[in-house]
């Protein structure tokens, strides 16, 4: 299977099963339609006829190059990944989203956490629950060395003393269990002060700083309980934190909605504020709310992704750095095929824990009836549910089987599918459309930057 597209004057062919990416001239791009896994070594007469605006020699030459790619296993590669189905099974838990605070000091309209409390009342995680969560991870991670813990909310800084004690507890166990903890904190920034910044920069491998972009966009949805926007409070704090971080991993991360389909301006605004690690993501919400993205918005969003990709090329070609999370793609050192076949691994390798110590497949499933997998007190998770989530992958999602993007999104977000498409194996169509567009942009970016070399 191949995916053939033209974008920003680049003719691109992705060979889906090998992952090879080819940039073609106009002639060879048209000739691709005459190729297949079983293509003959000699160019067929109908190809010469269809490309009569080129000389026979030119067509023969381009055809020969395409033939070589097929012979080298870089074009029309066979899909024989079924042989690896056995590797896609229940696996040790290696990553955990700790809901350290089901409370928030903002009241963002689009919050999937029901404005901080996930619909189950405001509560902070007690230290004892946090310690049990770390024990659970240590005892259920098998031979996985790298363990990930994300302090999430609500707003984690509302319970930061407990965060610090959990970090200390986890670190005290690393040598004994031969594990390495990697911590992340996601924060809206309101409570950041010098001490917290320094602590985060010392202990957290990654920090996710929530901001939506331009002041008027951010402040229209990210508001305090008294209705005031938070932009002016958080921007200087985020700038200072990143300045002190000395290049360690971080993201400024925001959401775009139907109200700012021109979100490339928000990405560029964040860049102008001095941030170069940026993630602005589509809102996922009830389709009936006014800011929700709908299928009819897909063409506009797709165009905006293209606009953004072109702006990023300009910045990169000027020698400056900018990284947009959804255009990140490492064509040579990306994840292995098994990881891509496994999918996001929620409910299997990744779980979320509530302040009460309840375990859910991921942060987005928290509070959804029927998806509690267990409790820290029981110390085990429902094997049937773990099994079901381990099978939520591209082999078992009918819409993924023949999608050219299946080795990149790996089946997409199970929570979105559950909430807005009716089941974890169902298709959330808007997400799929946008993912495919982002991927085309990401590949085109690679072509454009390679062009420069």
């Amino acid at each position, binding site marked *: 299977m191949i995916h053939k597209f033209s974008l920003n004057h680049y003719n691109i062919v992705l060979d889906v*099963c*090998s*992952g090879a*990416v080819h*940039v073609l001239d106009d*002639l*060879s791009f048209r000739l691709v339609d005459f190729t297949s896994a079983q293509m003959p070594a000699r160019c067929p007469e109908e190809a010469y006829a269809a490309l009569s605006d080129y000389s026979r020699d030119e067509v023969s*030459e*381009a055809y020969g*190059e*395409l033939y070589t*790619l097929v012979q080298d296993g870089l074009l029309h*590669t066979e899909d024989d*990944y079924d042989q*690896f189905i056995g590797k896609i099974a229940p*696996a040790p838990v*290696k*990553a955990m*989203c700790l809901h350290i605070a089901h409370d928030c000091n903002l009241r963002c309209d689009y919050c999937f956490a029901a404005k901080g409390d996930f619909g189950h009342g405001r509560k902070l995680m007690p230290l004892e629950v946090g310690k049990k969560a770390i024990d659970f991870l240590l005892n259920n991670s098998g031979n*996985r060395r*790298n363990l*990930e813990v994300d302090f*999430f909310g609500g707003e984690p800084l509302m319970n930061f003393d407990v965060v610090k004690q959990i970090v200390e507890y986890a670190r005290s166990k690393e040598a004994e269990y031969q594990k390495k903890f*990697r911590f992340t904190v996601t924060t809206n920034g309101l409570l950041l002060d010098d001490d917290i910044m320094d602590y985060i920069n010392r202990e957290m491998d*990654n920090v*996710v700083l929530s901001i939506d972009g331009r002041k008027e966009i951010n402040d229209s949805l990210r508001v305090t309980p008294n209705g005031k926007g938070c932009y002016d409070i958080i921007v200087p704090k985020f700038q200072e934190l990143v300045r002190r971080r000395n290049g360690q991993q971080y993201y400024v991360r925001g959401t775009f909605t139907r109200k700012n389909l021109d979100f490339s301006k928000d990405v560029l605004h964040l860049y102008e504020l001095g941030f170069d690690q940026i*993630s602005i*993501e589509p809102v*996922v919400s009830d389709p009936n709310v006014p800011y929700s993205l709908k299928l009819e918005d897909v063409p506009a969003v797709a165009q905006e992704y293209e606009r953004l990709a072109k702006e990023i090329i300009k910045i990169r070609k000027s020698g400056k750095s900018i990284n947009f*999370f*959804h255009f*990140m*793609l*490492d*064509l*040579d*050192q*990306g*994840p*292995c*095929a*098994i*990881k*891509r076949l496994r*999918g*996001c*691994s929620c409910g299997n*390798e*990744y779980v979320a824990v509530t302040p009460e110590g309840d375990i859910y497949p*991921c*942060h987005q499933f928290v509070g959804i009836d029927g998806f509690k997998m267990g409790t820290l007190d029981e110390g085990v998770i429902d094997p049937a549910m773990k099994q079901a989530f381990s099978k939520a992958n591209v082999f078992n999602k009918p819409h993924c089987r023949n999608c050219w993007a299946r*080795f*990149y*999104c790996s089946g*997409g*977000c*199970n929570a*979105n599918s559950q909430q807005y498409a009716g089941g974890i194996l169902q298709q959330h169509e808007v*997400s799929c459309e946008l*993912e495919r567009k982002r991927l085309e942009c990401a590949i085109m970016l690679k072509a454009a930057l390679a062009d420069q070399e």
Partner: protein
Amino acid sequence: MKHIKTLNKVNLKQTAAKGGCSECQTSCQSACKTSCTVANQKCEK
């Protein structure tokens, strides 16, 4: 090649045989939390 430039030589299939160590980052732990993108993670081998 004169007509075609191939951007990467690594074959995804070759990564399957010895893959699956699961030491790499979980995608939702990096930034997204709402829109799964697995392929943008790095292999840790």
